């Protein structure tokens, strides 16, 4: 999605802001209808309307979480554009949503993008500022 890379520290949920789930960054998305895409090429091992995990050929997984406390929406406002078990290319749409609607509902639409089972030291070149779909968010060595 397009928006602004703001870092995990900006996420209003300590589970993410303290990197309890893992290191990475967060995107403050444009407040317009958009698509959340696969962060890496691989298999969608878990797909919820509000969050998904893609695992690459090397077995490493990346979590994308669409907004905070959005599990409470039980899928409302999210449109699945892929299925669990699908192979996806990096940049391929996975979920359609509207961050403006999430925000209007009183929740933060900020999106943590997290490297799972990664050490903080293995993440580098973390993006900051304006980003568009396809921009690299961080390097995972």
């Amino acid at each position, binding site marked *: 999605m397009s928006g602004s890379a703001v870092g995990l520290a900006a996420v209003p949920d300590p589970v993410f802001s303290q990197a*309890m*789930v893992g290191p990475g960054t967060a995107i403050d998305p444009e407040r317009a209808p958009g698509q959340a895409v696969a962060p890496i090429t691989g298999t969608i091992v878990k797909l919820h309307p509000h*969050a998904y*995990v893609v695992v690459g050929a090397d077995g490493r*997984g990346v979590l994308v979480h669409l907004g905070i406390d959005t*599990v409470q929406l039980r899928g409302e406002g999210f449109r699945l554009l892929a299925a669990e078990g699908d192979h996806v290319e990096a940049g391929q749409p996975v979920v359609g949503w509207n961050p403006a609607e999430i925000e209007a509902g009183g929740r933060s639409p900020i999106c943590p993008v997290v490297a*799972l*089972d990664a050490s903080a030291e293995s993440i580098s070149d973390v993006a900051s500022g304006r980003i568009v779909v396809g921009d690299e968010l961080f390097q995972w060595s």
Partner: protein
Amino acid sequence: MAERKVSVESEVGLHARPAATFVQTAAKAPFDVTVAKAGGQPVSAKSILSVLALDVRQGESIVISAEGEGADEVLDRLAEIAAAS
């Protein structure tokens, strides 16, 4: 091999905060710790990827297993985290 069977009571299941706390606690153990859905294949309780992929929902039972000195204490703590609502 020591094990605990618990019902996951968190509204979000074993995701988000409960999952992160669960994995962080398991990761501190100097021995292997596994978690499985009742009757299912065990996965590493030290891997957030494995635990998220296990996709345990509220009300589902899990079996947490470990073997080693102090396994009972670790399992008790993990069971407590998993059972917390």
